[in-house]
C-alpha cells in the first residue's frame, strides 16, 4: 500500500536528498562507478585502491554507511526515511555502500542491543568506518543444526577466560580482525551454559585454515582455539546469556540471507531476456522452446511473489513496530528460489552455462557457475531449511513437540 507522505516532512526530505547528491558529487570517485563493496564481501582479501579508501573514509566520516545507528557511536543518527534516500541516491549515482560485512549486518545491531557502554564505544565506531572485519564463531564440527551442542570451552581464570575448542564454517575467518563467538562457560546446562564473547583473531593460540568448497573458492574456514586468553571485559551480556544474544544475532543474519535488506538488487535480469540470447526465438520474438518458456514464466511468477512477500513483510513490520510473522518464511523461500534460478540459468545456457574457467566463457557465465555451486550453502547455513521449517511449525503455527 502506498505510504502516506506528510507534506510537512516533504521539504525536509528534499533538502536531505540535495545534501546526499552534493556529498556524492564531492566525494564519490567516478572510477568506482558500478563497483560493489570488496571489503564487505567474504570471498576475497582486501587490497583497497586509493580511490576505494577515499570513498570508504568519506562515507565512514558521516556515518552514512550505517545511517540509522546512533551518532554517538559513529552512526548517521538518521531516520529510516533518510536512510532510504541515501540508498536511492547512491544507487542512482552507481555508488556502493563501502561500509558492510558481518559487523554491519549482524554484530553491530546485536552489540548495540546487548553490549555495555564501554563495549559499544570501543567496537561500534570502527565498524561504522569500515576499519575492522568481524567473523562469526558459531558452528562446530558437532554443532551445526544442533547449534547449542557447541563444546568450545571458556574456562574462568579470574581476570580472563582461557578458550579451547574448534569452530568451523567461519566465513572470512582468514581475513577477519575479530571474532564474535558463542562458547561454553558451563558444562552442566546445554543452553544456559553458553556465553557470547569477543576474540581477537591475532591472539596467540588462534589458528585459521581455509576450507575449499565445491565452487572452488574458500570463503569459509576452520578456526582452532588453543589456550587463547580472552579478557573478561570481552564478555557481552552476562555469563549464560549467550544463547539468547546469539539467537538474536541470527535473526539479523536470516534477514540478510533472504534479501530483506535490499530488494531492488535482488531482482536481477529477467531470465526470459537472458534466454533470448542463448535460445532460438520465433518470428514473434517468443522463445521457440515452449517447455522452457513455460518453466521460465513459472519461476519468474513465483520469484515476483517472493519479492512482493519480502516487501509486505517490511511494510507490516514498519506498521506494527515489530517483526512480521512471515519474516520466518523469507529465508526458506528466498534461498530455495535463488537456487532454482541458478539451475534454470544452466538449462538456458546449456554447457555454455557450466564453464569452470577459460576464455571461451564470459565473466558473467563463469560467475554464475560459481554462484550456482556456492548457492547450495544458502539452504544449509544460517539455520537450514529444515530448521526454518521447525521454527515456523513450532513458533508460528503452534505445532507441539513429539512426546
Amino acid at each position: 500500500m502506498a505510504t502516506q507522505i506528510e507534506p510537512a516532512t516533504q521539504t525536509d526530505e528534499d533538502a536531505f536528498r540535495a545534501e546526499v547528491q552534493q556529498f556524492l558529487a564531492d566525494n564519490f570517485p567516478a572510477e568506482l562507478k558500478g563497483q560493489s563493496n570488496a571489503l564487505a564481501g567474504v570471498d576475497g582479501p582486501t587490497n583497497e585502491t586509493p580511490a576505494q579508501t577515499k570513498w570508504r573514509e568519506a562515507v565512514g566520516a558521516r556515518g552514512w554507511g550505517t545511517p540509522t545507528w546512533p551518532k554517538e557511536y559513529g552512526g548517521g543518527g538518521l531516520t529510516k526515511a533518510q536512510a532510504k534516500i541515501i540508498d536511492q541516491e547512491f544507487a542512482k549515482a552507481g555508488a556502493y555502500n563501502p561500509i558492510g560485512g558481518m559487523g554491519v549486518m549482524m554484530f553491530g545491531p546485536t552489540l548495540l542491543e546487548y553490549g555495555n557502554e564501554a563495549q559499544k564505544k570501543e567496537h561500534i565506531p570502527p565498524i561504522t568506518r569500515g576499519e575492522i572485519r568481524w567473523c562469526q564463531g558459531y558452528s562446530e564440527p558437532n554443532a551445526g543444526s544442533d547449534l547449542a551442542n557447541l563444546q568450545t570451552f571458556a574456562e574462568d581464570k579470574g581476570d580472563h577466560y582461557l578458550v579451547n575448542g574448534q569452530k568451523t564454517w567461519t566465513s572470512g575467518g582468514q581475513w577477519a580482525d575479530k571474532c564474535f563467538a558463542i562458547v561454553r562457560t558451563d558444562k552442566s546446562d546445554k543452553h544456559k551454559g553458553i556465553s557470547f564473547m569477543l576474540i581477537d583473531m591475532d591472539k596467540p593460540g588462534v589458528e585459521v585454515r581455509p576450507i575449499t568448497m565445491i565452487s572452488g573458492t574458500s570463503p569459509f574456514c576452520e578456526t582452532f582455539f588453543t589456550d587463547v586468553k580472552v579478557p573478561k571485559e570481552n564478555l557481552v551480556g552476562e555469563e549464560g546469556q549467550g544463547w539468547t544474544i546469539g539467537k538474536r544475532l541470527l535473526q539479523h543474519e536470516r534477514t540478510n540471507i533472504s534479501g530483506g535488506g535490499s530488494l531492488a538488487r535482488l531482482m536481477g535480469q529477467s531470465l526470459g531476456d537472458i534466454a533470448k540470447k542463448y535460445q532460438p526465438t520465433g518470428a514473434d520474438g517468443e522463445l521457440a522452446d515452449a517447455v522452457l518458456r513455460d518453466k521460465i514464466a513459472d519461476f519468474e511468477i513465483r520469484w515476483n511473489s517472493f519479492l512482493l512477500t519480502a516487501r509486505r513483510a517490511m511494510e507490516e513490520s514498519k506498521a506494527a513496530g515489530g517483526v512480521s510473522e512471515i519474516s520466518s518464511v523469507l529465508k526458506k523461500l528466498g534461498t530455495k528460489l535463488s537456487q532454482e534460478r541458478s539451475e534454470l540459468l544452466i538449462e538456458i545456457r546449456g554447457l555454455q552455462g557450466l564453464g569452470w574457467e577459460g576464455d571461451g566463457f564470459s565473466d558473467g557465465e563463469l560467475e554464475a557457475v560459481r554462484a550456482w555451486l556456492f548457492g547450495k550453502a544458502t539452504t544449509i547455513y544460517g539455520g537450514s531449511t529444515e530448521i526454518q521449517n521447525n521454527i515456523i511449525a513450532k513458533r508460528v503455527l503452534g505445532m507441539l513437540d513429539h512426546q
Partner: protein
Amino acid sequence: MAVLNEEQEMLRDMAREWTVNESPVTEFRKVRASGEPEAFNRDAYATMAQMGWAGVIIPEEHGGSDFGFLSAGLVVEELGKTLTASPLVMNTVAASAIVLGGSDEQKARWLPRLASGEAIATLAVDEGPSHDPAKIETSVSDGKLSGTKAFVHEAHGADLFVVAAKDGLYLVEKGDGVALTTRKLTDQRSHADVTFDGAAAEKLANGGDNLLDDVLDRARVLTAAEMLGMAQQVFDDTLDYLKQRVQFNQVLASFQALQHRMADLFADLAQMRSAVEAGLQAVDAGFGVARAATIAKAEANRVMHTMANEGIQLHGGIGMTDEYDVGFYLKRARVLEQSFGSSSWLKDRFSKLSGY
C-alpha cells in the same frame, strides 16, 4: 496482510463478523440442498448489498462507496472463507466494465441499481470450456447481438450481461433473445451456457481498445481474492484438525513430517497473499495491472491447487466425506482455477507481457 486504512479495517471486520455469524458453510449447504439453479440466497445478497458490498468499486455519484478493489477484495476474501454463494464477485466485475467503458447514461441507468442490489450483472466472455478471450465469435449487427457464451458464472441470477463480442463489450438485458442452458459444475454454483439470438445490445463505447483485458484483469484479481480466502480457511481448518487428531498416542501436529508440510503450505500461502493483494492494489493504482493481475491469479491457482489437495490428504479419510467441508473447497477451487485463466494460459500471458 496488507497495511490497511481505518475504513478498510472496518469493512473487513464487518465482513468477517457477518460471514462467520450469518453465512457459515452450513448456509452454502442449504443453498446446495435447495437445488435452485441460481444457487444463492436472495435475502442474504440483499443484506450484503445493504451493507454496501455490492457498490465498493462504484463511484459515490452512482450510489457506491468508491473504496476500490483492495477493499472489495477484503470482503470477497471473507466470503471465500465460508464459501458464501453469491453473485457479488461477478456483479462487481460487470459493474467495473460499466465504470470503465459506459456512457454517462449507461452509468446512471445501471450502476445505482447494481450498487443497491436491485439488479445483478455478470460477465460473459468465453465461448468454450477453457479461458480464451482471443477466440470470440459473438458478433453484433444493427444493435442485435448473437453468439453463445459457455459456462457463464452467476448467469441464472443476472438481470444484465456484459458480453464480449468481436468488436468490444456490450450490455444485454435478460429477456428476449437470451436463453440459458444450465451447466451444473462440481462447485454446485450457478453456471450456464447463454445463447444470444439477436438480443438487443448496447455497446460500452468509452473504455478504449483494452477494455476487455482491463475487465478480465479485474475478474482475475477478485477471483484470486476469493481463492485466497478459501486457501486460508483450508489451511486454518487443517491446522486445527492436526492439533486435535490423536494417533499413536500423539496429536498429529507433533509429527515432524506433517509439521514441515504445514510450514511449506504456510510459505505458499504467504506468497499467494502477497501476489493477490498486490494485484488488487495495482488495479487501484492503475499501474502495471496486466502483469500484477497475471501474477495474482497464477499464484492463486498454484497455491489453491496444492492447498486443496493437501487439505484432503492431511484430513485423512474424513476429508473424503461430504460431512466435512474440506471437499467443498476442492470442488470450488478447481472451477475458479479454470476460470479467467488456467495456470498454463497465465504463464503464456506472463511470457508475452515480459517480451519472451
